[in-house]
């Protein structure tokens, strides 16, 4: 965490992440907002790489950039006029105040606390250990997650399927 490359990478990726996230708030076209969201996800994938979380970084790119962003794009083009508009509602100022308060409290706690730090080196690679943990210690949540995904997939198909036409 001391090499110049990591420091530069951290600041560039953090600026990219936060900048894209702000662009999601300010742009007026929802398609552009999705582009900002993709930028946020990509910046986070880079931040995971600086934290030597290789498996999570690849998962982030595959799932978030490859699947969830495309899902958002589909939802936007399936809801034509209504989704061009990215305006704020009347709750804009209370929400801004609340978000600033939450940010303030979280940053204060992060800086004020003394964490139980370790000075271990970077993980050499994480995928094999994650696989072992998933199939040994966390095998029950793993199975439940597969059922959850099945329910979500079937549920979304049932929800968006057009009404069946009566044949007689």
């Amino acid at each position, binding site marked *: 965490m*001391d090499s110049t490359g990591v*420091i530069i990478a951290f600041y560039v990726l*953090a600026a990219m*992440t*936060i900048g894209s*996230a702000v662009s*999601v*708030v300010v742009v007026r076209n929802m398609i552009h*907002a999705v582009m900002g969201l993709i930028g*946020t996800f990509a910046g*986070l994938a880079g*931040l995971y790489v*600086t*934290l*030597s*979380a290789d*498996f*999570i970084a690849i998962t982030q790119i595959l*799932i*978030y950039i490859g699947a*969830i962003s495309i899902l*958002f794009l589909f*939802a*936007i083009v399936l*809801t034509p006029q*209504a*989704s061009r*508009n*990215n*305006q704020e*509602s009347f*709750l804009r100022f*209370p*929400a*801004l105040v*609340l*978000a600033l308060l*939450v*940010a303030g409290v*979280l*940053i204060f706690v*992060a*800086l004020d606390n003394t964490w139980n730090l*370790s000075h271990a080196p*970077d*993980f050499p690679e*994480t995928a094999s250990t*994650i696989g072992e943990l*998933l199939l040994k*210690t*966390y095998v029950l949540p793993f199975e439940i*997650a597969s059922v*959850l*995904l099945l329910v*979500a997939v079937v*549920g*979304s*198909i049932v*929800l*968006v399927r057009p009404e069946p036409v009566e044949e007689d």
Partner: protein
Amino acid sequence: MSIHLEHYLIVGAILFSIGLYLALAKRNFIGVLMGIEMMFNAVNLTFIAFSRFVKSDQPLSAHVFVVFVITVAAAEAATALALAVMVYRTRDTINVDQIDLLKW
């Protein structure tokens, strides 16, 4: 000068607040969902940062937890966007201020 845990926690906190603002203030239901996804991501970043920097017997447990969070986030996004499309079909709007059928 080097990068510490606090740097990542601050990025996570800012990202969480932006997501919270999106989820609370956007008029468009899809914008609200974007805010929720952003909050999930902020929490994931915090998990990974803690797993890298904080003393623990099995630091990679945080990575497993993040895998589950991503799974649940994907399921949630698929279901919620299907709901958005369905609400648009029946009511011709996804403005959260106008979806008030159950409002007394």
